[in-house]
């Protein structure tokens, strides 16, 4: 099972990220997780949001370039060693992680992971009895 991550290409211009979050706020879109990868000239904002299709449309209408990328959102116990266990599984199956970001809330910890073969990764994690979140689960977070 995978979910849709919003990817946004942002030029390094002052106020761009503020503008992006303003549009999400106006459209009542909740951001569950967010990471920014930056280079000297531009950045990529990656976000897991409650209603990705609606967010994509609103942002595109405002002139942003949006990609929807398949990622896996895996539920991991919020205790030492949990993330290690997941990565160990992926390494054993020769799955290379492109990027990931993680967050924890109360006793729940979630990791968003992107790999080249997202279907294979999803299958491997589910086979190892790890819980992957659906888009509906995200909406309820």
């Amino acid at each position, binding site marked *: 099972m995978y979910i849709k991550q919003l*990817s946004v*290409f942002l030029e390094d211009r002052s106020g761009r990220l503020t503008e992006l979050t303003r549009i999400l706020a106006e459209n009542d879109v909740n951001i569950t997780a967010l990471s920014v990868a930056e*280079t000297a*000239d*531009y950045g990529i904002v990656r976000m897991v949001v409650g209603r990705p299709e609606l967010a994509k449309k609103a942002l595109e209408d405002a*002139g942003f*370039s949006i*990609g929807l990328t398949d990622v896996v959102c895996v539920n991991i116990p919020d205790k030492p060693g949990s993330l290690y266990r997941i990565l160990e599984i992926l390494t054993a199956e020769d799955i290379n992680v492109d*990027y990931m970001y993680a967050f924890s809330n109360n006793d729940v910890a979630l990791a968003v992971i992107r790999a080249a073969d997202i279907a294979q990764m999803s299958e491997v994690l589910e086979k190892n009895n790890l819980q992957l979140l659906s888009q509906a689960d995200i909406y309820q977070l």
Partner: protein
Amino acid sequence: MIWNNEMECADRQQMHEIQSRRLSAMIQRIYDNVPFYRNKLKEAGIEPGDIKSVDQLKYLPFTTKSDLRDNYPFGLFTVPQSEVVRIHASSGTTGKPTVVGYTQQDLEMWAEVVARGLTMAGIHRGDTIQIAYGYGPFTGGLGLHYGAEKVGATVIPISTGNTKKQLQFMTDFRATVLACTPSYAAHLGESIRKEGIAPEEIKLHTGVFGAEPWTNEMRKEIEQLLQIKAYDIYGLSEVIGPGVSMECACQCGNHVFEDHFIPEIINPDTLEVLPDGELGELVFTPVSKVAMPLLRYRTRDLTRLHREKCDCGRTLVRMEKCLGRTDDMLIIRGVNVFPSQIESVLMEMTETTPHYQLVVRRENNLDTLEVLVEIDERNWSDSIRELEGIRQRIDHNIKSLLGISAKIRLVEPHSIERSEGKAKRVIDYRQY
């Protein structure tokens, strides 16, 4: 089909006679009526009767853009104002505009050469041509207009701008031909996609594009975006406007309507005439123009001429697609750079769009070139590794083509300002 078989397929000997006769008559006209030319010819020791053959063209003095400015506005007209039925003027980005006048006969000749060009591109009665060149003092709109009416096509004189209306007319009126600048054609193609218009609603089959230099790679991009065959039309207002030369279906250079506009290629430094096939500055003598004929007008466009017979059957001399104007050329750290060269690098790559801008600065006495490139909104990766890979490939390809390094900056789609006329490709901040 060929519009004017007699002129477009004349043998070399016949063409030589036509050109010689018209040149000799033109020299007499400008000597009698234009003090500027009378003085120039006298200085060169030439009397009107001396010039009997087009082979003597190379002994005659040149005309430059600054000569046009010095004689602003009507100093080069050979006829009284009562004979002039139309005046066009260039945008005049540097100083005074360039003014050109037309008699009724000139307008008829202009419509004739544009009709020849449109026929070359397979356009005829039954076609609907959307003319999205600017109408007004700029020659693009009205130039195409009368030629299109002459071939009997249905004309939509929409002029430039208002992209939404362009798309509405294009679909509702079932336009089959689009005429505009290549950069605006690319913009319209993108807008069709963005608006989600179904391909079957667009009936275009042919595009006639000109008024700015464009590469074959840009042509492929536009052809793919609009699902058309794209033809180059060349012209400049000083000579007549669009319709000086045009591509045929072979697309092996533009056929110059040399019975009206005699082309030469010169070395811009020594001013000597160069043989066919050599790169140099294009010079035109519009021999049959009545209101404002010019003697050896230096276009500043760089190209080559070819005279071998074309597969389309026309014998008219062909000029290659212009590499650029000598005044578009940037000199960066002593290296000559044409925007069209950068464009050809970008067009070869699938991840970028035809929208780019060159920014030149001087930092610590060193020229720097920055190339702003829009990523393709339909085809970009959210992986930094891949985006950096694209950046490095552009960098590498520019370096291997030009021998200089540039700073490549990837920018958001639609962030570079869209032009509805000529694209603004270069911003030069250097102070000379």
